[in-house]
């Protein structure tokens, strides 16, 4: 069984919990006391990941770090529909990789702002928030133009991909870093669509889609 080294309040760990829930994969969790215990910098954890970062998974002897890398791995291995990471579609794979890198940018801005505000990390908060707004503006326009063309998801496909999973957590948690999404209506609509994907699960700070609306 897959083992996820996990911290409940980590958006990067949430990416994997979300994906495994979408795919219906069973897994077990090893809690890591990221805060306040800094267990991700402990000796035993650094043996798993010398970068001292969450998440890490272990699957049939394979140890893998980095949320985006793990999304690629799990989708390639465990998605029988082949839609989350369509290996036979080079253009789509390129697009997905582009947005996986974009998700890393969200981590270094919106997630950094959240770590600053909630866990007292010594980051330049103004730069983190400005960086997040810059990325949100770009994504909002991208999603808005997509909607005009009948596209609901980040990449050019009729179904969500791991790019949607990778971008979702630190966007939906952005207010905890003082980054409101008020000015990004297309992002807000997209968040709602993600919440209505079958198998969606929440983490602390994320609420399910409201009742009374029918999925698009």
């Amino acid at each position, binding site marked *: 069984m897959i083992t996820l080294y996990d*911290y*409940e*309040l980590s958006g990067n760990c949430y990416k994997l919990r979300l994906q495994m829930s979408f795919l219906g994969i069973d897994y077990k969790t090893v*809690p*890591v*006391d990221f*805060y*306040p*215990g800094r*267990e991700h910098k402990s000796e035993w954890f650094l043996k798993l990941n010398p970068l001292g970062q969450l998440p890490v998974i272990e699957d049939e002897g394979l140890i893998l770090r980095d949320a985006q890398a793990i999304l690629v791995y799990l989708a390639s291995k465990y998605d029988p529909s082949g839609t989350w990471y369509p290996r036979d579609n080079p253009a789509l794979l390129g697009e997905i990789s582009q947005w996986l890198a974009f998700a890393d940018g969200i981590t270094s801005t919106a997630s950094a702002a959240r770590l600053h*505000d*909630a*866990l*007292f990390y010594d980051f330049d908060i103004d730069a983190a928030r400005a960086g997040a707004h810059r990325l949100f503006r770009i994504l909002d326009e991208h999603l808005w133009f997509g909607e005009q063309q009948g596209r609901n998801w980040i990449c050019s496909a009729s179904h969500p991909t791991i790019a949607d999973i990778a971008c979702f957590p630190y966007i939906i948690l952005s*207010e*905890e870093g*003082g980054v409101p999404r008020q000015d990004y209506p297309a992002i807000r609509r997209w968040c709602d669509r993600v919440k209505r994907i079958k198998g969606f699960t929440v*983490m*602390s*700070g994320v*609420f399910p889609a409201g009742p009374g609306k029918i999925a698009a």
Partner: protein
Amino acid sequence: MMTKCADPVILNLWHPVGAIAEAAPGAVQETVLLEERLSFAVDADGEPVVWRSRPDVQRADHIPPADRLPAISAYGYVWTSLGSPPAELFPIPEYQEPDRRKLNAATFGVNVSAPRAIENFLDMGHFPYVHTDILGVEPHTEVKEYDVEISVDRDEILATRCRFFQPMASTASDGGADVDYVYRVPHPYCSVLYKSSPVDETRRDVIAVFLQPVDQEHVRAHMLLCVLDEDNEDKVIKRFQQTIFGQDKPILENQVPKRLPLDPRAETPIRADKSAIAYRRWLSQKGVTYGVIPAAA
């Protein structure tokens, strides 16, 4: 010395500034209390030293005794005051019981006023909706009648006979149960909760929230766990409480207005808000102005 906070009631209280478990001996930590930058350190014996931050002092033993702020160590935290604090902090007798697990679940920064956070801590009505499948679940949404008193002797609010169905009351739970709660508010910015222990029906787990007012609309929330649990690792117990608090956080941060209105007509309470009504009245009677919108005179 001039202070930025002009509320004498709040200035003269003890306030928490950091967890002793996370303070390496001698290491100086910087924090903010009531809009003032403070430095603190804990020596190898656990004795805390707190002072107003200044660039020429980087070590606790370099700060002259006259320039130190009042400091005590209690319930696993360093407490200080910018005014003249009482001789003793409010009691939590259970903290002395040797078989309890005593942990700082976490210290989180929250964009909320301290009184709004206390009110949320006292509220049972949100359990099924915000802490779904943990502290509550539909259709068990009713907040049954409970008792609230403002104890004049002890100068604290006491809510008793609170009862709520909880699918998973703690890490030691093995299923849903009706859980008894007692809430105390012994300090305008601190609350102590007692809830039935799943492992010993004669005793209660103690969970306290101690709010450090950074300014009128921001706190550092320190969460003390003092619980009966022989099986789970510290990090599992902490994770449970952090999960709960992480669910409350967006609710707290979206309260409008951020400061707690004390005018009884400002917000419409329901019966379940009895303890919140007593809390607001108690703050008014004390003359608290910091972190609240005082009632018009």
